């Protein structure tokens, strides 16, 4: 029996210990951020002024996440725990500076269960949770685009998980929203797995960005066109079309091993498409929650993925995510 939105790991991930952290404390700021499961679409997009921007549309995934607390103290150094979370430290310093609080320091503590190197946005998760914790400590409201701008400054490239109300086409290296789709992605059932679980993982920042051909730069236009329709109509089938097409283009630049088998899995399980983390190793088969057979297909997909030797898989329901976030 598949538990809705649950982890289906043979080795369970550590669960986030949320309860004691969620209490609003005068002296503490609290922030959290959920991870993503790669992207529905990633490529390069022309703006009305003719400029080209690398950008992406992330698929939120609340199985994984980070949370942070911040205890501010004036004229104190900034202490970050764990100490190796350098990007979170950088983001915290930038956030304090951006809020006119450069003289403040304090203790920033981060907890996360986001696997590293899979392309799930572990670093942006830490960064976003940290910025939110700092803002919370000073009772400041930071808009998602302000958080995004700080995150990109700290990380060079950041995902768009800070935009939780609506799907956005986010220029992850420029820190700007190219287009907001006004609504979240439609409800989706995703069966995810790591296509290279034995691999060392990927350092997203060291990954050389794809140098797209003229043809592919043009090809992203119809992809974003169909995504507008998919989100407007809240149609999971069309989302599947966009995600599969984006994964296929990406395969020419940042190839994933055994790619043909993902395509075969889509056919075999009546999935409406598949999505990938374009610079990571995560793959998700996409199912339409409106289909009567979805539950059966999800189980079949998990069995097939195990049979193919990809190991553990997990089931995400983005509709459950939507409910919780609201």
């Amino acid at each position, binding site marked *: 029996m598949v538990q809705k939105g649950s982890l289906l790991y043979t080795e369970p991930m550590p669960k986030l210990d949320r309860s004691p952290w969620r209490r609003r404390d005068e002296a503490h700021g609290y922030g959290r951020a959920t991870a993503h499961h790669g992207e529905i679409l990633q490529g390069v997009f022309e703006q009305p002024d003719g400029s080209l921007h690398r950008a992406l549309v992330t698929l939120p995934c609340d199985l994984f996440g980070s949370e942070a607390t911040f205890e501010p103290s004036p004229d104190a150094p900034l202490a970050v725990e764990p100490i190796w979370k350098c990007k979170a430290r950088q983001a915290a310093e930038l956030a304090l500076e951006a809020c006119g609080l450069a003289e403040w320091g304090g203790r920033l503590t981060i907890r996360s269960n986001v696997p590293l190197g899979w392309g799930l946005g572990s670093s942006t998760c830490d960064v976003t949770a940290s910025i939110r914790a700092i803002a919370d400590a000073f009772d400041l409201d930071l808009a998602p685009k302000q958080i995004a701008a700080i995150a990109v400054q700290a990380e060079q490239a950041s995902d768009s998980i800070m935009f939780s109300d609506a799907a956005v086409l986010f220029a992850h290296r420029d820190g700007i929203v190219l287009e907001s789709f006004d609504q979240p992605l439609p409800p989706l059932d995703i069966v995810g797995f790591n296509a290279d679980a034995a691999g060392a993982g990927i350092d997203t920042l060291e990954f050389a960005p794809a140098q797209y051909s003229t043809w592919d730069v043009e090809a992203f*236009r*119809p992809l974003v066109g169909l995504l507008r329709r998919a989100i407007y109509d809240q149609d999971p089938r069309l989302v599947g079309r966009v995600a599969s097409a984006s994964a296929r283009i990406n395969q020419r630049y940042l190839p994933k091993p055994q790619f043909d088998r993902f395509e075969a899995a889509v056919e075999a399980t009546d999935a409406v498409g598949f999505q990938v983390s374009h610079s990571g190793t995560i793959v998700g088969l996409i199912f339409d929650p409106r289909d009567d057979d979805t539950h059966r297909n999800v189980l079949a997909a998990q069995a097939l993925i195990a049979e193919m030797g990809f190991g553990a898989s997990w089931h995400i329901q983005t509709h459950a995510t939507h409910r919780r976030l609201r």
Partner: protein
Amino acid sequence: MKIRNVASTVIDAIKIPRLIRLEHNLYAAAFVLMKLLPARFILESARQDGLIAPGTTIIETTSGTFGLALAMICNQQGYRLILVSDPAIDPPLQRRLEELGTTVEIVRAPAATGGFQRARLDRMAEFQAAYPDHFWPAQYDNAHNPGAYAPFAEALVETIGQIDCLVGTVGSGGSMCGTSRYLRLLFPHLHVIGVDTLGSVLFGQPDRKRLLRGLGNSLMPQNVDHSAFDEVHWVAAAEGFLATRELHRNHALYMGPTSGAAYQAARWWAREHPDAVVLAVLPDEGYRYQETIYNDAWLEGNDVRLAELPAAPRLVAHPHEAGPEWSRLLWGRRDYEQIMGAPFSPPGQV
């Protein structure tokens, strides 16, 4: 939020077609002038590659809508344009081109072998020699012709969503091969129907004089990717003209003859496949054809006035079996040689 914005030129304002639902599963993309897309993309790419700048001389041979599209863009962007044409060019079009600042060079006599087409190419070669820094758009062979149709594909899927069948006429191969290649990224099973006319070499018919213009060809452009097509239809001139009139009578769409030919094939296929979403590409408007296709006396004078369209195309197994009326062949995404048994060889060469 979507807000309407001002276009900076008429080219930007009209390059994307209007999308209209004709029947429950049949949609039409009605262009004012479809060739604006490739003309603009070819020149814009050339500009970005440093091949042209304002003042550059552009040289092309055409008597059709690609020339008009080039003329409009060159007029707005400050390029000099020389078009080599033949006496078949209609005088109103020639006046319009000249008003836009285009030099229209009419070849008066056909070449000894190769006819007017050869004579035009020879004259163009003379101009190209005289203007060493010229740019030749070469719509038949320039990959930026099919490459230009991404904004069209974007508009289609954003507006309609899933599309199952694309129907349109083939001349240079740009619109159908380009659009289908972009759409198949999203819909790999898209059924693509290329509409040709009898007497065109594109899909293996023997070359002969054709009255239905704007589709078909006597040459084989490199931009025709035969493996893009699931199905090919050959439309007779009289049928295409009547279908053009029916498009106007039934839907108040005043379009050119290529639109009629596309409508003829698309309407039949859509009715045969009521669960499939079918899109017909309508490449230009009807005003150039007021005195011809929209004039019964002209139709009668040319013996192409038809009372009724055939109910269905005749299914043929080989291109040589097509005609004299509307015919179709299940091309099956094969290349030319697979169908014909030999690669295409231009007339006069064996």
